[in-house]
Structure formats: C-alpha cells, structure tokens
C-alpha cells in the first residue's frame, strides 16, 4: 500500500527531518506510525501525499510513485494532515463542498449527498450549518475526518486524529477508524499516544529523530518488551533479598513494591517464588507479572523516554 526506499528529507536550513526511511505498509492493515513530536512523522506524511518533495529516496503509494502520480493516487486516499484546516467563514457543510470540488474526479451530481453522509458519519449532522469558526477543536477535527471520508477510499492517512478531543470523542474516532478498516480501507495512523496504537492498530512502525527504529505487527513489537515480576509489599528489603536468592535479576526496589526480570526460571517458578516470600515472612500484598506494553518496547528500543522531542 505504501512503500518507501531510503526516503530522506533535508530542509533548507540543513536540518535532517527524515533520514533513509524504509517503510512498508501492508494492504488491509491498520498501521500505527509512532514517534515523539518532532521525530519526522508529519514530514514523512507530507512526502507521501506529494506536498513536499523528498531530498532523496522514493515513495510509492497504491503502487504508484509519489509525488509524480498525485493526480491518480490521491483521489483514492483520504487524509487528515497535522490537524484540521477550515474556512472559518463557511459552514461545515460548505467546507466539505469546497474540498470535494477540489477533487476533479468527484461527481458534482452526488456531492450534496456524499457531504451529508460524511457529516452524519462523524456526528456533525446537527452542526453542519454552523460557521466553522464557531466549531470547537473537536468538531473541527471531526470535520477534517469527514472530508477524508467524502469518497470510499483505499487508503486513509490520519495524522494525530484524536488530538484535541475529549475521551468520549477519542473513543468515537477510534470506533470510526475500526469501522473504516473493517470495510477494507487500509489506515495509516500517526500518533504519539502509545495506547491509541495498541488499541486500534494491527501493525506499527516507530520513528525517532527522523529514523525508523522498528516496524512489524503490534503483537511482535509488544512481545519485545519482557514481562516484569511485581511484588507489592511493605517489606521491600526482605523481599528483594528473597527474590535475588531465587535468581530474579534487574531488581528495582520502589515504594512498597519490588520489581524485577523473571529471566531464566520462567513462569513455572512463580508459585515457588511466592511461597518462598511468604515463608520468609514477607507480607505479600500483591504478586504477579505485568505484561510488556508498547511503551516498554519503545523505551527498550530507543533508550529514551517517549515524551522526548527529537
């Protein structure tokens, strides 16, 4: 669906925004494009959409090279790039009419109807006649999504689609993304929210400082993060001693808790370990494995916190 080879963008100031990106988005996937703010996600998306020209490397979207094939590729792609942008003096409906009129392959005869359908789909039916300048950020975001859904699309590119939405709005947008994906549209979703990617995506790629750190299925990525054993207890020091004696490594004593890597012994050792703790007089309040998350995987991969801007 999307494939890039050595895609690179160096801005005029000499800043390397995207560095040798080899991205491969399979058809039918919901692809999470993950990375901290400033890691080059939006620049990559702009290159994929033909808005900016790559300094070197190639990008193909729907099997055709960009930005040369913009006219044949983009009518089949819906996009939300770096937040919504609207004509404040036009109503929500007229904004959509304008964006639809910009597509020369869109049929003017079905325009009204497609606009209404898109408005209903994002829950803006009631506010469609209001001037867009009176919209809240969440409503603007929805209207941006509606413009991406004016036509049935093969690919939907969504750059931070839940930015500025309240939790209810986020849930609705994610439900919409799943719905669109279920219809067979490939979704390319950029986000800096890990749980968002974990909730909706089948595949993911992680960017950091303009480079691709890793890509694969979400399950594969999460598996990279090892589960950690967590013991909740007031007797932190005593518990740590017992765990160390049972070959648990990487022990981190915390406030009323100790956690460490189970490593060698594996899951079978858990009951024995628990018994040993109790036998040693440790007051065990909680005992268990915490499953690895994408965030752990990310930290393990990049060695940096997620909120660090590149």
């Amino acid at each position: 669906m999307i494939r890039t080879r050595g895609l690179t963008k160096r801005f005029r100031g000499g800043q390397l925004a995207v560095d040798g990106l080899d991205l491969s988005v399979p058809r039918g996937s919901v692809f999470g494009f993950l990375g901290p703010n400033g890691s080059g996600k939006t620049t990559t998306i702009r290159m994929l959409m033909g808005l900016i020209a790559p300094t070197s490397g190639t990008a193909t979207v729907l099997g055709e090279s960009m930005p040369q094939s913009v006219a044949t590729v983009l009518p089949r792609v819906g996009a939300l790039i770096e937040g919504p942008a609207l004509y404040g003096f036009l109503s929500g409906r007229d904004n959509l009419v304008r964006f639809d009129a910009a597509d020369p392959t869109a049929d003017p005869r079905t325009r009204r109807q497609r606009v209404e359908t898109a408005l209903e789909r994002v829950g803006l039916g009631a506010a469609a006649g209001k001037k867009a300048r009176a919209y809240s950020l969440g409503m603007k975001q929805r209207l941006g999504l509606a413009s991406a859904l004016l036509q049935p699309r093969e690919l939907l590119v969504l750059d931070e689609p839940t930015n500025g939405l309240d939790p209810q709005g986020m849930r609705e947008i994610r439900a919409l993304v799943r719905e669109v994906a279920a219809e067979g549209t490939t979704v390319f979703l950029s986000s800096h929210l890990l749980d968002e990617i974990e909730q909706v995506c089948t595949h993911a790629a992680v960017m950091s400082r303009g480079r691709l750190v890793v890509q694969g299925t979400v399950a594969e990525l999460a598996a990279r993060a090892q589960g950690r054993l967590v013991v909740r207890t007031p007797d932190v020091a005593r518990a740590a001693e017992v765990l160390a004696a049972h070959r648990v490594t990487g022990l981190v004593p915390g406030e009323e808790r100790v956690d460490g890597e189970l490593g060698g012994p594996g899951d079978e050792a858990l009951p024995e370990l628990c018994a040993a703790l109790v036998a040693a007089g440790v007051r065990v309040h909680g005992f268990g494995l915490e499953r690895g998350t994408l965030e752990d995987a990310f930290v393990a991969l990049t060695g940096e916190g997620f909120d660090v801007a590149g």
Partner: protein
Amino acid sequence: MSRAETSHAAASRAETSRAEATVLRTGRRPQTAAGFLALFRNELHLTFRRLRTKVLLGILAVLPVLIGVVVKLNTDSPHEGGGGPSFIAQTTQNGLFLVFTALAVALPVFLPMTVGVVAGDSVAGEAATGTLRYLLVAPAGRTRLLAAKFTAGLVFCLAATAAVAVAALATGAALFPLGEVTLLSGDTIGLADALLRAVLVAGVVAVSLAGLVAIGLFVSTLTGSGIAAMAATVGLVITVQILDAFPQLDAIRPFLFTHYWLSFSDLLREPMYWDGVLKDLGLQAAYVAVFGSAAWARFTSRDISA
C-alpha cells in the same frame, strides 16, 4: 451437481460480485469535465461569499457617490473650481460622464488596491490557514488551483469595475441630467451609443487590471502570509505609479503595467483612438504571461509545509 458444489458456486459468485463492488467503489475514477470545472465555480463562490470582498466592492461603489455629491455641491456654489480632470467639468452637463470620471479616479488607486488584496491573498491566505494542503491532497492539482485562482481574480476585476461603473451611472442619473453626450473630440452621440461606450470602457478598465492579478498571484506564491502578500502587491502598484511619474525614466515607463491605464479616455473620441488601448492590452497580456509563468513555476515546485 451436489449441494456442496452449488453452495460453493454461489459463495464464489457472491465473492466475485463483492469484489466487483469493491472495485467499483474504490477503484480509479475518471476525471470529468464537470468535476474539473467545479473548482472554478467553487473558487468564485468562495471569493464573493467573503465579507472582505463585499466590503471592498461596497467601498468601490461608495466612491462615485462621493464624487457625484462633491461635484454637485461645487457647481451649486458660486465660485468655480479651476482645473481638475477634464471629465469632471462635463459631468455637470451629463450624468453619464460620472462613469468615466469615477473610473478615472478609481483606476490609479482604489481599483488596484482592491485587486491587490484579492490576488495577493489568494494562495498565501490559504497557505496561512492550512486549507491549501487539504486542497492539494484532494487533489486539486497545483496548475488547476492556480488557474482557478487567476480566473476568480479576473472575475473580481470585472465585478470591481462594474461596482464603480454602475454606482456612478446611478448617481449620475440621480444628480445630473442625462442626454446626448458630447465626446472629447467635440462630436455628439446619442445616449444609447454612449452607454455602449461606457460598457466598453469599463471592460477595458477591467482587463487592464489583468497584469496586476498575475503579479499578485505570483507574490502570493512566494510567501505563507496573506497580509504580507497583500501589502507587497499594493505597495508594488504604488511604487510603479510613482516611477511612472518620473520623466527621467522614459526608457522604462512604457513597460510599466500602469503606464497605459488611463488611455481608455481615447475611446471617448470619434472615431475611437485605439492605439493606447491596444498597447495597454498587449502589455497586460505580456505581464500575465510572464508573471503567470513565474507563479506556476514557483507554485508547482514548492514544498507545502504550512
């Protein structure tokens, strides 16, 4: 045929039709003429729905009313105001001349200012609000978008000139007598003929702003700030007119886009004297070609990062 085979065949048929439906739904759609032109129509809508456009046209329409009232008051008062444009003296005899007076007053300053605002903001304004990126991923096509902007600019020139001319005609008819018109050459023509000439003059005035539209469009592709583009375009108009006033610059003056603007008065002679007007139109065509190409070259190769 066994039942299993039948159901299998039915399933595969369903599969095929679903696959076809998907192809129909999302496959490559052809570009249609109506679809292509939709952006041009929409661009006109967008331009004339804007409050700013309405205010500009309103100001242009008030101008002839002001001139008319001032001229009326001046002629009613006993002392004679000396000099002034040759049209103004005629206005008191015939209200139709207010059209020519108003156009002559509006053309050097007010008309180019409004055109500069509209053309200068056309691309830069969209870049500033970010709507440009959504138009381009729609995909509007950069050349098509530029052509739509240019067309809307030209139509605005027509509307602006019409606003001045119509308001002037109405004011002139209300304040002064209408009747046979004595031309600058001394000949007299009937009112209907004179009205036709007024339409012709207004058309020439509108078209002579075409070069400015192209310049404004070019400036507009250079920056991401609508205000900067508007200011630069209007500033350029003023600068060029100042340059045009220096006799020392005779060598370049005939190439300034404002140089032949007032030649429209040659159409108020009998027979009409087309020399200056044709030079003006030729010059406008040259400016459109040069700055249109420059705008195209710039816009089609530019990174849209706003």
